[in-house]
């Protein structure tokens, strides 16, 4: 069943929509959740929440790319859950490493927390990503959108983990400079 057919099920309030969605994109969403949560039960819970969120969102939403629509929901839910779980203590592990790496990008030279316009930042991030070489962009998003492990990414792109780390580091540095130039830091 393709996206259009699945979305039609949603619009018709046919509960098969969830089953079909899960069948089609369960693996994809599960991977996203698992990259962040590393816990099977949490992953499943996150997936269920994703289907529910989709059920409530479609309609009125009619996502052009259902897969990405669901992926983003899963990512947000998983991250919320991650923050919930780690509210009392530092989580550690792979995903914490992802966040720590991102911390490099937002390290302000003045070390001052600034308010920022999320919408403007989103636009700027898109511009930044657009300017990156495709491979760097893909690797960057693999790591910081999908929270994939460096090893996995390296494997996929047939580079060494070290090389991958270097690429990520360079892009992070670029991002930091970019954010500084644009006044976000």
């Amino acid at each position, binding site marked *: 069943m393709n996206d259009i057919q699945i979305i039609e099920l949603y619009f018709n309030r046919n509960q098969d929509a969830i089953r079909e969605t*899960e*069948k089609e994109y*369960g*693996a*994809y969403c*599960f*991977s*996203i959740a*698992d990259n962040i949560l*590393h*816990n*099977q039960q949490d992953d*499943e819970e996150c*997936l269920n929440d994703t289907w529910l969120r989709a059920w409530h969102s479609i309609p009125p939403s009619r996502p*052009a*790319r259902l*897969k*990405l629509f669901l*992926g*983003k929901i899963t990512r947000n839910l998983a*991250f919320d859950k991650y*923050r919930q779980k780690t509210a009392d203590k530092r989580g550690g*592990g*792979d995903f914490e490493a992802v*966040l*720590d790496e*991102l*911390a490099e*990008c*937002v390290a*302000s030279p003045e070390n001052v*927390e600034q308010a*920022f316009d*999320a919408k403007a*930042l*989103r636009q700027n*991030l*898109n511009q930044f*990503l*657009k300017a990156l070489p*495709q491979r760097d*962009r*893909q690797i960057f*998003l*693999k790591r*910081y*959108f*999908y929270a*994939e*492990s460096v*090893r996995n990414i390296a*494997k*996929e792109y*047939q*580079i*060494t*983990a*070290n*090389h991958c780390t270097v690429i990520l580091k360079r892009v992070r540095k670029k991002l930091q400079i970019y*954010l500084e130039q644009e006044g976000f830091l």
Partner: protein
Amino acid sequence: MKKEELFQILGEVDDEFLDENVTEIKHSTSWITAVVSIAACIAVSAGLIYLIPKPSEDLRNPAESALQSETSVTTSVQTVTETQQETDFQEIPLYFDLYTATDPVTSYEHPYDAHPMIEIEISENPEILYISETPQVISVHDSLDSSGRPKQYEFTVTDTGYRARNNDFTLERIDENTLILHSASNRYKVYDGMTLSRQNTPYYLLKDIQPENIAYVSWQLPEESEPEFSYPAEQAFPEELAGILQNMHIYAKSGCVSYARWVFTVTMQDGTEHTISQPEGLQNRFYIDDILYYSDTDFYPFAEYIAKMAELSETVQNTESIPETTAVNTTVPETTTTITTETTTTTQPATAETNQIMTGKSGVQVLPYVTTEGQTVPEPVVLPDIQTSFETQIIMEEQYPETTVQSETTATETIPEMTVQTETTTIPEFIQSGIIEEMGVIYAAEWENIDPWEFTQGVEKDWLLSNVMQYYPDKKYCIAVHPATVQIEEEGEEYPTPEEFLNDLGIQILGRRKDNELVIIADSEQIEKMGQSEYMGFVAVLNPVMDFDQ
């Protein structure tokens, strides 16, 4: 802005970027909604673990599905959460089979070969596979065959962890592609009903590795393509670096690879390979690119270090334009078979003496000890404090009267066309590892503030003794030492001052520098004697170029 906020906003990037293959993330075709319970069949072995697909009828009763074997122990690892949805991918429960395998895994054939057999070798080396107390995620990197099933698995310990000897490991299945490796405190400890024995584990690699320094090592599967090198792969390791490597604490960030065997191979400039330890069934090697130095905050490629060494080498070789220290390269024609002896006499003008001052990374300035006949050894001088950059400087001063330097060139057996360097001026390959040799003296520039190595003084001394002098036992060394805090008796006699102690050993003192450190010139025998006495501590050995902060 906080990192969490950035992560969140990154979740809202345009779909167009996510659409560029990025959506094809791993596991997408092979997920298991809920992990089926795993029956583990474990046999004490040489550390080989096989994850073996079980026939579908056994899936329904995982507790009864353990493979029977005389040497196996059956146990259940995880509980069943049977929420598997219809997928186009048949779920593959994994069975851990740790058994005695005198024959490497290559000959193993499991009867249930309807599914691809998954093999994990976890027997690397307790010295190498360091496991932290927290669970280690082992990602299974699967490549899918034409039917979309996993064909090849690679298990990787993705946490940097730290040294923890004699650990047991317990694998917990998270999903099809992820296992968690738990470490237990004792060997052979039963953990969650599962014991993975490391008895008879091959223990073959880098036994002499010291734990104080950390590096990252991984390897390449035989079937994988060559890794990309950020630094030319053909850049050879100087032979002596093998010794350096033996003083590194190397551990595996990567974990277990089927068919893989640990080996550390150092490729020499002449193409020969030096294997620090060669296990049976050698099929893999570590690559230079995958060896990283570790500092407090990051890993740095070992290749960078080598590159910097090469730069240093070039820098020093550029000093060959100074007549007094120029290496005399003699191109011998291919047909030359006779022994040629040539004596060169150079008269040095009084206005340009050979008082060369070499500045190391830390600015250790030492006057050269000149072994060549006819030159005067300078008086001790007070040396300035540390500087920050490394460069070799030849400073001409006008202090000494006209002297005569003689050098003798001897070339033998020069049948092929080749370049022969005079013995007195040759800059050895070893210069690449940071030791600078001038006029028969090896200068060991100070490498203070080099965090990655974190040598204690004792290690410095050991390093010098074991890794430098063995290659150049006949050389003299210019090093900095400092007096021990407590003066001790040597053979019943108490030395009142460091100078006296050194003088008694016949060691020449060039001068003092910061913290009363003495810059001396001594041969290996003297240094050894000095080291044994514990009267003097070594403070300056090398390394002048390990500055990765640039």
